[in-house]
């Protein structure tokens, strides 16, 4: 209960501020049917949601969710494999690292049109955008975790004559798992961003959440715009929650930083 109070106070302040803003903006309710143009107050959020609109939002949610999930899973795989490869080969690590940094600091939005042109406006292109934006924190955290295994633990495996694979699976990956999960936590949010930003450049086919929100924006349909934004936010939260749950199950019982 004590922990709930601060959260409730913040929630009440946000809702209060939201109402204050909605009713203080001059032209907010100047539309012909009286619906909000800029910010719908919370209790009128779902007003503009007629059947076809709900269907469009549902389709877009499905596309963006599937893109984010597939992209995130692939990013996790690519990130861990890259981290392992770089921990095995110093020359691969030093050769690859500057390019990974360059890729990481390049805003994904300028790469997206290039990817859509090269790959074509397909599901694969959406996933590629998602993977590109989200694999780096996993790769770098995996590499860091694999390299941070204490020497004495390596010695235990060396004395047991452990193969490289056994050392990786029995020692390095478990030891690096807290670090890998920290990377996944960052990447989870990025994957959702990637799936939605990537969508902006897909001018054909069913729109995802990114393109749908621009349609609602251009049509000045504030209610559906807000609902779409909330759904994107919920997807991000769900991703985050999955990683936090994985951390709670696999890492927290034994890990004491």
């Amino acid at each position, binding site marked *: 209960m004590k922990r709930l109070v601060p959260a409730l106070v913040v929630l009440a302040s946000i809702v209060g501020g939201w109402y204050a803003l909605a009713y203080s903006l001059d032209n907010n309710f100047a539309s012909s049917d009286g619906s909000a143009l800029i910010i719908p107050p919370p209790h009128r959020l779902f007003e503009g949601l007629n059947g076809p609109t709900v269907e469009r939002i549902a389709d877009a949610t499905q596309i963006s969710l599937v893109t984010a999930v597939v992209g995130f899973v692939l990013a996790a795989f690519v990130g861990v494999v890259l981290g392992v490869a770089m921990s095995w080969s110093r020359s691969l690590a030093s050769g690859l690292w500057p390019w990974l940094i360059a890729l990481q600091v390049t805003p994904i939005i300028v790469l997206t049109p290039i990817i859509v042109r090269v790959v074509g406006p397909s599901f694969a292109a959406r996933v590629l955008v998602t993977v590109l934006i989200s694999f780096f924190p996993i790769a770098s955290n995996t590499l860091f975790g694999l390299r941070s295994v*204490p020497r*004495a*633990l390596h*010695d*235990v495996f*060396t*004395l*047991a*004559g452990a193969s490289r694979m056994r050392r990786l699976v029995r*020692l390095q990956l*478990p*030891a690096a*798992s807290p670090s890998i999960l920290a990377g996944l936590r960052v990447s989870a949010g990025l994957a959702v961003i990637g799936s939605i930003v990537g969508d902006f450049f897909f001018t054909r086919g069913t729109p995802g959440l990114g393109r749908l929100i621009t349609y609602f924006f251009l049509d000045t349909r504030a209610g559906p715009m807000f609902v779409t934004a909330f759904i994107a936010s919920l997807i991000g939260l769900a991703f985050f929650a999955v990683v936090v749950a994985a951390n709670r199950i696999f890492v927290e*019982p*034994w*890990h*004491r930083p």
Partner: protein
Amino acid sequence: MTNIVAPSGVSLRAERVSHAFGDAAVLHDVSLEVRRGEIVALVGPSGCGKTTLLRACAGLLAPTSGTVVSDGAHIGNGRNGNGRIGFVFQESALLAWRRVEGNARLLADPGDAALVDRLLAATGLAAHRTKWPHELSGGMKMRLSLARTLAARPDVLLLDEPFGALDQITRHALHDEFAALHAEHRFAALMVTHAIDEAAYLADRVFVMSHAPGSIVAEITVPFARPRRAALRFSPEFAKLCGGIARHLAGTA
């Protein structure tokens, strides 16, 4: 692998081992042997190369010159001979993500479950088998580390200041437990320590090392019969032996 016929009864032999890290010489011309079933202690000031010598004996480090032979096989970098060499690390080196039982089984043969059970019982850990390492006290961690290493049935046990991080009461209890485990499993042990009384209480022979670059300045035979009792620590003979070791350490013998 070159096979050398070792003198019978010798489990581990270091011959004229010298080592330098870059320009810094840490070991100079060290020779020693550990016979079957014997406990040998290596005492010396910190930084005298004790740990380096132990790592060379384990094959974790290739010395600049000299050889280490265990049960007829050369010990090289990453190769630990024909005999099974166990190593007990200062900081216990447990896997934090494995429970007590999982750590105890780590190095054991899959068919040696009964031995693991016996060792867990002997080290007082049987009731704690589902605990995580972070839930154990320092003494329990070291007991687990010992149990884990012995579960691999080593012929030679190398110990790097195994009891150094423990309080005195726990340390004395562990001395007796270690001696009991040794009496049962009869491994040859080479133990690095900076505690003179520990060396005198546990070892059959004590080698004293000089400051870096470390070399052996004295070999002292410990005359006390086994099993040794705690009362031994308060006897005049024990004090005299410790005093002798201390004088060699100080370089005034």
